[in-house]
């Protein structure tokens, strides 16, 4: 870890000012990703600006239109166990509780979760080329050991996946990210927040330098009756997803009225395919129809030497998760597959 100075910011202008002034000054929230990366010298900072004490955005509040606003500085655990989240957005609660460990969820903030960096082995190994860590140096994963890498939306410069669980549910729920910067406030639809790698894999998302995520809004529709989050991984807990699926279904008269299916662990951002969701509308909630939707979602998947298993895994996970969404009681703690 390099040496740095530490500043506690109590209001947004102070925070913006410090990050503008300091070369390579960085914000710190829960610290669970930043401190880890700094200990490996993968991220350096001249100063850390502590944004945990900023006024506001420490609560979860109801929005006038029936939605919910999640403050950026609310911890992941507090969000998952919040009565309104449990009642109206159990999909989000499930996804958060499938991630990391209880200790980490007590520390990690909602804003920080959106900004966590990839777990690509080569990104974490400073001795190997990596376009995300050092633009132009090359990608070690494409011809390397790429078992955990992406199968959708990859580019010739990067095939990393975005590791968040919470964000898979937020994508399915059509969340909106509220941002403050020196030039004012703006909001981004969740689908527009994270980026595909393209030829700028060093950029994970569309947050501009110095901007702060202040909150995340989720619209009213929470799919609280028929939802499921399934996370498949090398061990049943405290591991990142190889493939994860968030499903929300709205049923009417035995038919699907609305469907949301988002995948994690397969791309540089949570993956949703509108055509698959449209295909399911007005259809019966059957394994056959979910399997067809899975084909549409995985269409165009591109595999690498060690990760071709993810295509079949993702298809089966989609079907299984959509079936579990019909009976949310069938789910086990930690988003494990039902017995």
């Amino acid at each position, binding site marked *: *870890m*390099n*040496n*740095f*100075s*530490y500043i506690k910011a109590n209001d947004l202008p102070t925070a913006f000012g410090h990050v503008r002034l300091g070369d390579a000054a960085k914000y*710190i929230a*829960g*610290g*669970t990703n930043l*401190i*880890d990366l700094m*200990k*490996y010298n993968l991220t350096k900072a001249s100063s*850390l600006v*502590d944004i*945990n004490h900023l006024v506001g955005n420490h609560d979860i509040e109801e929005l006038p239109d029936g939605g919910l606003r999640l403050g950026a500085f609310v911890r992941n*655990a507090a969000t998952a*166990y919040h009565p309104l989240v449990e009642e109206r957005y159990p999909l989000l609660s499930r996804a958060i509780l499938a991630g*990391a*460990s*209880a*200790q*980490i969820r*007590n*520390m990690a903030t909602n804003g920080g979760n959106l900004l966590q960096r990839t777990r690509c082995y080569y990104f974490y190994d400073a001795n190997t080329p990596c376009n995300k860590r050092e633009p132009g140096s090359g990608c070690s994963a494409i011809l390397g050991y790429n078992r955990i890498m992406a199968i959708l939306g990859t580019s010739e410069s990067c095939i990393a996946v975005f590791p968040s669980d919470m964000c898979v549910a937020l994508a399915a729920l059509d969340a909106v990210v509220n941002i403050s910067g020196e030039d004012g406030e703006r909001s981004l639809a969740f689908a527009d927040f994270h980026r595909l790698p393209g030829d700028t894999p060093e950029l994970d998302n569309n947050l501009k330098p110095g901007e702060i995520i202040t909150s995340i809004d989720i619209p009213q529709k929470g799919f609280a009756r028929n939802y499921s989050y399934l996370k498949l991984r090398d061990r*049943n*807990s*405290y591991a990142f997803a190889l493939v994860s699926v968030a499903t929300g279904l709205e049923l009417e008269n035995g038919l699907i009225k609305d469907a949301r299916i988002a995948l994690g662990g397969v791309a540089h951002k949570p993956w949703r395919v509108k055509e698959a969701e449209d295909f399911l509308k007005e259809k019966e909630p059957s394994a056959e129809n979910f399997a067809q939707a899975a084909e549409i979602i995985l269409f165009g998947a591109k595999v690498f030497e060690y990760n071709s298993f993810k295509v079949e895994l993702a298809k089966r996970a989609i079907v299984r998760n959509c079936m579990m969404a019909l009976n949310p009681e069938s789910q*086990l*703690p*930690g988003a494990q597959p039902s017995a």
Partner: protein
Amino acid sequence: MLNYQSTYSPVLTKDFDTRPVTININGKPTTLQLMPWVSLLDALREYADLTGTKKGCDHGQCGACTVICDGDRILSCLTLAVMKEGSEITTIEGVAENGQLHPLQKAFIEYDAFQCGYCTPGQICSAIGMLKEGKAKTRADVKELMSGNLCRCGANTNIIDAIMEVKNQDSHE
């Protein structure tokens, strides 16, 4: 108020000054003279001489460094000590009361819930946090909510037995 002098000196550059950081550790307001990059874990072990809290991975992957901060279990290796100014920290050294072992400490002995003991302080602090959270209903829940604490010796089954014993005692009260 206790004042500890640092015995641990990382390589320093003169641009960065130490600052006094006051943290309430196991009920005692404790002022440590720290560089900003000292983790809470290093502050406890190297500056406050409380070596009960263990460093396993230093990267958030094992849970050995778990302490209780303002009532919540957290990882002290992924926290900067300066960020915890004014907080109440409980470490394994602070869980016994009036010379009596904490019920979880007793249960760990009774159920043979450790071999080398390295993960034990973190396991016990984590279990205290978990029971306080009150989210675990079943043994499967306890296993899931304790998954952030690894045990290389494989004492896990006995660890869960010990925690279940205390959990059941609590619910009978």
